[in-house]
């Protein structure tokens, strides 16, 4: 149970804490509008104040929509042992997060997962987070 709580906590931290570090969540995103996106990574910007993930999401009719999602700052991710090599163009990812308030195809990424269920940029091997 403790481990589960730690995992959940780390997941929340990775999404909300770095974001709030730089600016208010409410300034940009809507906590009442969760979103789940599955698609193909096209680009990763390993930058501050946040990393950005770009992905193509295909609907049932085959139409492709281009999305962008904000992640944490490099500093926090680096202290947790992550590098920009963790994701590369062509990777299939599922991102859960919240939509931007402006209606654009923009999200704040609460979690990023690979097809095998492994989380990327969320939590670290020792659970330490700041």
């Amino acid at each position, binding site marked *: 149970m403790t481990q589960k*709580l*730690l995992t*959940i*906590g*780390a*997941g*929340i*931290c990775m999404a*909300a*804490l*770095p974001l*709030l*570090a*730089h*600016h*208010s*969540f*409410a*300034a*940009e995103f809507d*906590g*009442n509008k969760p979103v789940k996106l599955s698609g193909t990574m096209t680009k990763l*910007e390993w*930058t*501050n*104040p*946040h990393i*950005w993930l770009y992905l193509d999401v295909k609907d049932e009719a085959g139409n492709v929509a281009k999305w*962008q999602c*904000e992640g944490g*700052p*490099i*500093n*926090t991710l*680096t*202290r947790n042992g992550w590098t920009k090599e963790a994701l590369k163009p062509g990777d299939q990812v599922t991102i859960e997060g919240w939509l*931007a*308030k*402006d209606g*654009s195809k*923009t999200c704040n990424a609460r979690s990023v997962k690979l097809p095998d269920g492994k989380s990327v940029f969320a*939590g670290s091997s*020792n*659970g*330490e*987070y*700041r």
Partner: protein
Amino acid sequence: MKSTILLAVLFAISAVAQNAPKPPMGPVPRLADGKPDLSGVWDRPYVPDMSKTGKNQEGLSELPFTEWGLAQWKNYHAEEGDYTGACLPFGLVRSINSPMPMQVVQNTKYASLDFEVDNWFQVVPIDGRAHRKQEPTWSGDSVGHWEGDTLVIDTINFNGKTKLDTIGHPHSNQLHVIQRWTRTDLGHISYEITIDDPKTYTKPWKNTRTFTLRPDWEIMEYSCEENNKSLWEGRIKVPKY
């Protein structure tokens, strides 16, 4: 909703922080003049809301707003203007409240407070001198003096353009901040911050915290301007002052 998210964050921090390595043990290090040396990289509790209490942080649940202060608080909406999102200076109190670590570099005349967040810093004279006379600034004018083994940093002359914390608690240009830094042993600082702002609050109020030494960390570059897409693409607004 924003309160729910902030509570979730505070919970998450307290949960995962349990896995941080134990801080080093030992006596309080001292400079040649015998005063405590606060130098080191410090892990501090992230305080997005100073009215909340969490791990290593004791807040004040009911802030004593004046009528003016309460109106400021109720009328603040981050989506209408978010100064840190616009890469404007965090200011002293919000820097202290930020989640990223800070480093203190100290000699007998100065203590440099080096915040990783946006790489802001403030060099504080700690030799007991009086406040400077200058135009108000984002982080105010700080001077320090010793009360026994406690470094007291007194800050005035703020421009009033910042918020105290992420959730947006207000202050005015009458803000007067008193920080009390006490290194209790090698690995810890007992920290107290008092908010004294008669325009915004009917009486002074404070938070008390514990900072933990992280000898395994160094302060990193953190650029707000490098890729602030949210501002460039219009999702974050620059506040109107």
